[in-house]
């Protein structure tokens, strides 16, 4: 049990991200790779994710402006996006990516547009939460061990 109040708050914030389904086990895997040699590994990977995925989101947006939809192209972009999201444990974002790809496979343009709107919302929500989490983590100081959620 963390005695430091800031660390306690950080632990609660972290637990909530798992309990509310924003993150999955893969995020814990990233934490396990963080050590003295790579003290900021998790934040670096997440930063890289938001940089790479922003480009993909823009490509998808542009592709959705062209009619008729090129479902192969859209699926290709979303395949990349899903892979990246999966790598950081972004559970809800990954689920929305899967839904989008299902609509691509069935040639459902409206479904794609709807799924993409939902995906962008989940993506933005997670980004805000992770930014707050890392900001608090920096203030709280270095963590000793990764803790699995109960």
């Amino acid at each position, binding site marked *: 049990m963390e005695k430091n109040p800031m660390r306690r708050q950080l632990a609660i914030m972290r637990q909530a991200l798992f309990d509310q389904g924003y993150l999955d086990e893969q995020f814990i895997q990233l934490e396990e790779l963080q050590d003295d040699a790579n003290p900021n590994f998790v934040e670096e990977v997440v930063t890289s994710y938001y940089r790479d995925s922003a480009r993909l989101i823009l490509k998808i947006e542009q592709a959705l402006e062209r009619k008729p939809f090129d479902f192969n192209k859209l699926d290709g972009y979303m395949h990349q996006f899903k892979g990246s999201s999966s*790598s950081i444990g972004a559970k809800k974002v990954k689920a929305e990516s899967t839904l989008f790809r299902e609509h691509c496979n069935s040639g459902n343009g409206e479904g794609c547009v709807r799924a993409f709107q939902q995906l962008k919302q989940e993506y933005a929500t997670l980004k805000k939460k992770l930014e707050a989490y890392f900001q608090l983590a920096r203030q709280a100081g270095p963590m000793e061990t990764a803790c699995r959620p109960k």
Partner: protein
Amino acid sequence: EGHIWIESEGLGKGCTAIFIVKLGIPGRLNESKLPIMPRMSTIHGQIAFPGLKVLVMDENGVSRMVTKGLLVHLGCDVTMVSSSDECLRVVSHEHKVVLMDVCVPGIDGYETAMRIHEKFTKHHERPLIVALTGNTDKVINENCMKVGMDGIVLKPVSLDKMRSVLSDLLEHQVPFEAI
């Protein structure tokens, strides 16, 4: 030459089999002809692979970063490439393992695996090839085996899974299917 016997304290108390055997000393081997097998060692009680040279081919930047982090954590010496052409250019007999993503549209991991086989005609010089895939359906499994891949791993890969994959590969050197 030797002796073998059993000692016991009595009925129901178990027994110990003991043997003394005389062994010969093997003649000096020409070590340059043997494949150089990386040694596994333990760090903090867990298996690690110090200096194991691994080549990772993955078009996805985030996924590449995570895979690299995993392997570096296990002590590996990692080279990253993002395309088949780069992979074939860079791969050498120094690489013991090639991890390649086979599910990227536009990158043919299967063909890359076949071309690695062609490049290394001597079996012991060829790196072990492991497919990283986002899903393991029967077709993917069969394709991987057909092109001579040594194993398949489902992404995202956990630290424990990567550890056991490398350990199995280096110890047994036989094809396997990862769950």
